[in-house]
């Protein structure tokens, strides 16, 4: 019996490979398995190499899986470029209408399109394949039948026929696979969870977090891979006093956020790297004029247009310093779906607490990931709101030694929110002493944020691993394998990257070495840590794909061999 099943559907864009993996995951989740999906596809509507992967497990899942138990290959290219990731006992299910797998071995050719037509539902090719996969993995078909019935019961006259066709397609695929005699180690039965669980994607979790935090306005411009958050908010951020709009550019988005934040509302946008680049000046305005707002940057790969639909963690340095002049924008980077929910709440809370811009750094692999999680305990949600001026300071807005009461237009305390250096009333001045005083005020406010939570384990070890963002899951897997193998290694993790939790920073500074797994070339968090007195060294990857657990484990082990020797000689 097996605890895990990893299935990859590979083909080209528009063939439903992502949908296939998500249906399989949803069906498995419905009967109590843990599931996690990952998908990667090119930036085009139809065509180009694409794949979707579903990992199904009886245990909680940390990453999308290193080796494939089943590779579904819809064309020759998909087979050639994915087959090397098949595990030793893995099976290929391929579309025999497109190509033939020459060599013997564990491969099942299915004329899936023809079989779908035979089933009476020509659109059920995916179901044929899923039936075959289920047969191979010993995954009871009745689970899938239940799921199909629920999914396609939509109160429409044709429902019965669609359900019947899909179930028939499912069985046809299973029967074909059974004829081959191939099988995988069958999956253990799911362990029923005592908790309420939800099947959710990363962008949905972030959107729900924002709504739970009391978000009132959302303005965004379409950009991969952040568009799904915009459309989610268009669909679900409703109600009196709420507004969602599509802007004409990211320059308009960020300036509109400044206007909305100035008006007293809680406000957010979602974008990706190119959009964040355009927002630099506007973020500077929000920092300077002290306007609460949140930018969710769903990171993709590379500079310029780069890799629009791939995943990377290469926007950290820009997020912290997105524009000219002295500023340090607070950054929260969730490393899981749960953290996308809680991180979005904290991002809004931070912006309200310190009265300025906050960036939430998501990434393609988190935003698009579908996973089952324990439903967040909503009684734990604490939504903060800015301290509002009662007019007792007259027209003086930028006063005191940090955060000052926020005058809301329509109420007392009229002032000018100014992006030029300004005096207490917000009127422009270039006096040296005012620039010094106001700069101190703006930076001092960051101290209110340096109390975020963090994870710490085996803190007695002198060498630590500290991943960030979406690399958390793979790094955690690698860490557990390394420590199980006897390595004395500390674990640190936080989603609060700027400012870092005070105590965490102190602990990191005391380590001989902190290894930082991150998906970028520069080793961006390692740079940030070194600038704060931590002997940090990055373990990088920049393929547009997430770390595999095994690769990361081996690379960390290698670092420990080479670096700990050097440390000892220092």
């Amino acid at each position, binding site marked *: 019996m097996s605890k895990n099943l990893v299935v990859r559907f590979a083909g080209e864009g528009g063939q439903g490979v992502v949908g296939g993996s998500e249906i399989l995951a949803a069906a498995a989740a419905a009967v109590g398995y843990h599931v996690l999906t990952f998908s990667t596809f090119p930036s085009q509507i139809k065509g180009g190499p694409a794949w979707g992967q579903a990992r199904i497990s009886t245990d909680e899942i940390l990453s999308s899986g290193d080796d494939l138990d089943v590779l579904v290959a819809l064309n020759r290219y998909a087979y050639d470029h994915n087959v090397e990731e098949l595990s030793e006992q893995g099976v290929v299910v391929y579309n025999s209408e497109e190509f033939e797998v020459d060599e013997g071995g564990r491969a099942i050719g299915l004329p899936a399109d023809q079989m779908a037509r035979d089933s009476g539902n020509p659109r059920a090719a995916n179901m044929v394949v899923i039936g075959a996969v289920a047969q191979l993995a010993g995954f009871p078909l009745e689970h899938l039948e239940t799921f199909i019935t629920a999914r396609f019961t939509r109160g429409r006259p044709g429902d019965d026929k669609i359900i019947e066709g899909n179930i028939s397609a499912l069985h046809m695929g299973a029967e074909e696979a059974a004829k081959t005699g191939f099988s995988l180690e069958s999956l253990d039965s799911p362990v029923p969870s005592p908790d309420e669980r*939800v099947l959710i994607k990363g962008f949905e979790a972030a959107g729900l977090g924002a709504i739970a935090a009391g978000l009132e306005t959302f303005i965004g411009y379409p950009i991969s891979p952040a568009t799904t958050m915009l459309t989610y908010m268009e669909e679900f951020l409703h109600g009196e006093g709420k507004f969602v709009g599509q802007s004409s550019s990211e320059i308009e988005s960020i*300036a509109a956020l400044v206007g909305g934040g100035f008006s*007293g509302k809680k406000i957010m946008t979602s974008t990706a790297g190119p959009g964040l680049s355009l927002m630099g000046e506007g973020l500077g305005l929000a920092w300077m004029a002290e306007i609460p707002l949140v930018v969710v940057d769903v990171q993709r790969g590379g500079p310029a247009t780069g890799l629009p639909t791939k995943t990377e963690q290469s926007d950290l340095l820009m997020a912290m310093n997105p524009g000219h002049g002295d500023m340090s924008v607070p950054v929260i980077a969730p490393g899981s779906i749960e953290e996308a929910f809680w991180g979005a709440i904290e991002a809004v809370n931070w912006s309200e607490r310190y009265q300025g811009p906050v960036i939430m750094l998501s990434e393609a692999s988190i935003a698009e990931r579908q996973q089952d999680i324990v439903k*967040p305990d909503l009684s734990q949600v604490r939504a903060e709101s800015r301290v509002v001026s009662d007019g007792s300071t007259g027209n003086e807005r930028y006063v005191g030694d940090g955060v000052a009461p926020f005058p809301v*237009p329509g109420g007392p305390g009229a002032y000018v*929110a100014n992006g030029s250096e300004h005096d207490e*009333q917000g*009127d*422009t001045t270039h006096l040296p002493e005012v620039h010094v005083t106001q700069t101190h005020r703006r930076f001092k406010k960051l101290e209110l944020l340096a109390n975020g939570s963090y994870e710490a384990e085996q803190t007695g070890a002198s060498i630590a691993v500290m991943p960030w963002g979406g690399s958390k899951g793979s790094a955690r897997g690698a860490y557990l394998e390394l420590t199980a193998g006897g390595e004395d290694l500390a674990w640190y993790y936080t989603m609060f990257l700027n400012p870092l939790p005070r105590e965490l920073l102190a602990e990191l500074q005391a380590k001989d070495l902190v290894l930082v797994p991150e998906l970028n070339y520069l080793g961006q968090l390692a740079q940030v840590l070194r600038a704060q007195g931590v002997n940090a060294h990055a373990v990088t990857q920049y393929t547009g794909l997430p770390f595999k657990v095994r690769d990361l484990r081996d690379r960390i082990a290698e670092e420990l061999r080479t670096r700990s020797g050097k440390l000892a000689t220092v």
Partner: protein
Amino acid sequence: MSKRNPVYDFKWCPGCGDFGVKRSIEGALVERSATLSESVEKTAIVAGIGCSGNLVHLQEGPQPFGIHGIHGRTLPIAYGLKSSRPDLNVLVVSGDGDFLSIGAEHIGPQAKRNLDITVVIMDNGVYGLTKGQASPTTELEVVTSTTPYGKLDDPMSPLETYLAAGVGWLASSMSTQVKALQELIVEGMAHPGFSIIHVQSPCTTYNDTYAALKGNEKEGIEPMAFPVPEDHDPADLASAYRLAQGGRIPIGMVYQRPDSVPAHERLRAAQERTGSQEKTVEELFAAMAI
């Protein structure tokens, strides 16, 4: 320097057209406040970067809220402000450089949304604050520090540009006509939708166009500015284009679309039509339950 803040040390040059515009806006805010029994604090002025934008710091009398942002982005700021708070009266003040050069891309979207804001443009045909470079409205052949051979680019026709962008309420004015301008601003603010009042506001230091605007009958110089003819029908778009295209500057009401439903009313109507319902976080999670 302002009465509110004596240490504020910005000054316009003597004779600057912006003084007149400032007085018109102060008068318009007081008039609106009295007419609607609405406090001036319900108004927010969004100011661009340039000489004109400093108006927001110089306002005398009852104080509106102000936001003095970054170059070219008055309209996007106003978009977020008004969309978030339709109850506020939002007034944009900007100049020809800020609004028609770096910020020109934003005119179309606000016009098409019919964002319910009022824009007052102070056009002096030059970049004044950076000391005299050519702007989109600088006339052909004019020598400035960036046009040593005289300006080679054709000057932009702002009124034509606004009409083409779909601006639904458009007036043209002069900074010297303080009372008339005040009335236009009051009307623009009362208009339910996007309104622009484009004001000739000469720069006495770098581009003094007072004489050219007024003309000189004795010397046979025809004035650039002329009153909009009484028989002009502002509801007639073709007629508005003819006024804008004459190569001179009409002063008065240029265009007013007969039907104007502002952005926030369009949204409200669409939500009522589709019966969109607010869902709680609990309900949204429930829909994802396994």
